[in-house]
């Protein structure tokens, strides 16, 4: 398949990009608003072309453990779900992080808690960026704001997952999953045939056996392992921070927003500028690692930052930690599947400016 321009839903773009990125396997279970990922892959039947396995598991728990198994063999494997389903996967995710395995997890977030609603939300930020399961670990979290990024972050996500031997999450939401936009798809990549040195692919006579586990009953060794993980996360913070800025050069007030909220803020920013308010936008693309340094720099030159999220206020805590009290920080959000309008965001910026 050649490079190609298509009109696709975010969910479909993830699925097509996974095939084209040369993924070895997808294991999932349907849930709105991300079911199109599984449906698209089932219909595309890549087994017949690239050899990629697509399987509807009996549950989310089974799906993530199939990912665990595939990743143990060094395969490029992924799963996707939406909020309640991602909660079910958390045990598997912490085991995968603890076993230092690469994989890609896509969360098309809906409103919560519990079964909540099927409408878009960003209320899984804490779960995605602070671990989610038990134990000291992080996922590397990518936050797409367009259908194009839904596609691009699949390959990027796999690359980063293998680079750090760490699970990567694409944290999207129902709006980006369901909407259609133009998307440039990359040409088909061949599935890798490389046998990775740490993978459990059968022991040859030439090396010791590989063991994949997240269990170590020796506290000293376990702590040593924890330190190794922390070093890995520090390295991500050094090398992998990604963000995008809009009109921050002369900005007095900055929106901080990711995903769908960042799109709303782009519009709110235009409306604000039209009224003479010097607004800017910083859009974190990686949520872990978070663009702390850049926000801290910007804090010195602006009068305030407004975090806009479709949640009760989660990312705003990372904004506060980043600016260390150098500037005023506040939050505006809607919940339960409600999406704020750009006009509403502008009104809140105005009342934030008034103080």
């Amino acid at each position, binding site marked *: 398949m050649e490079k190609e321009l298509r009109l696709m839903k975010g969910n479909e773009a993830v699925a097509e990009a996974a095939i084209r990125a040369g993924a070895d396997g997808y294991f999932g279970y349907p849930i709105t608003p991300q079911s199109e990922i599984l449906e698209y892959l089932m219909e595309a039947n890549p087994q017949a072309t690239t050899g990629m396995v697509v399987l509807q598991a009996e549950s989310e728990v089974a799906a993530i453990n199939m990912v665990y198994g595939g990743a143990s063999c060094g395969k490029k494997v992924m799963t996707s779900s939406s909020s309640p389903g991602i909660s079910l996967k958390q045990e598997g995710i912490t085991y995968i992080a603890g076993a230092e395995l690469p994989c890609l997890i896509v969360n098309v977030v809906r409103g919560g808690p519990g079964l909540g609603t099927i409408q878009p939300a960003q209320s899984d930020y804490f779960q995605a960026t602070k671990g989610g399961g038990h134990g000291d670990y992080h996922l590397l979290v990518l936050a797409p704001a367009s259908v194009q990024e839904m596609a691009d972050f699949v390959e990027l996500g796999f690359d980063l997952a293998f680079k750090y031997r760490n699970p990567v999450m694409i944290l999207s939401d129902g709006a980006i999953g369901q909407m*259609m936009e133009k998307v440039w798809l990359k040409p088909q990549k061949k599935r890798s045939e490389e046998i990775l040195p740490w993978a459990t692919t059968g022991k040859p006579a030439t090396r010791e056996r590989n063991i994949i586990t997240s269990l170590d009953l020796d506290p000293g060794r376990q702590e040593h392992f924890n330190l190794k993980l922390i070093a890995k996360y520090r390295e991500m913070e050094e090398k992998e921070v990604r963000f995008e800025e809009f009109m921050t050069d002369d900005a007095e007030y900055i929106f901080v927003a990711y995903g769908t909220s960042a*799109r709303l803020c782009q519009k709110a920013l235009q409306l604000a500028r039209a009224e003479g308010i010097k607004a800017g936008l910083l859009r974190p693309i990686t949520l872990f690692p978070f663009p702390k340094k850049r926000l801290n720099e910007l804090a010195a030159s602006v009068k305030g930052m407004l975090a806009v999220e479709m949640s009760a206020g989660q990312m705003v805590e990372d904004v506060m930690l980043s600016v260390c009290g150098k500037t005023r920080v506040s939050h505006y959000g809607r919940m339960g599947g409600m999406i704020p309008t750009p006009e509403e965001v502008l009104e809140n910026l105005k009342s934030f400016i008034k103080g």
Partner: protein
Amino acid sequence: MTEEIIIAGFGGQGVLSMGKIMAYSGMMQDMEVSWMPSYGPEMRGGTANVNVILSDERISSPILRSFDTAIILNQQSMDKFEKSVKPGGTLIYDGNGITRHPERKDITVYRIDAAEEASKLKMQKMFNMFVLGGFMKVKPILKTEYVLKGLKKSLPERYHNLIPLNEKAIERGMEIINKV
């Protein structure tokens, strides 16, 4: 140029697919496009709406609450979205089943009796194409040539034989739309 549109009506009227054809056509014309459907309980309860944006520039928010053009195909949608048209904007509606007609004076209102015409010509399944034709007449953004290309791209091949009929519906739609 940025045109922010909502199409709203009953499920089955072809609301989402009409939006999709508009987005495809925009793409064929090298425009930036977005298509954002309602996928929630409202859709499951029988009403459907979709936001479509056609623009020469990178699209910021794909989710909107006020629109340059509202295409309204049932009474519930009239009650809900008449007020969402920007002042100076356009409202296009099908008179079929409408009991309370648009009342606003600060917008341009067009009526197209597409359901009636489609039924007269026994082309009920192409109802939405009549409406699309009406839209194309009063908002000349999408060109027929590209709409046909868009149809070709969005329809499965087994339906490509229906494209000439769709074209006919679009042309007829252009003729039967009237300013109120």
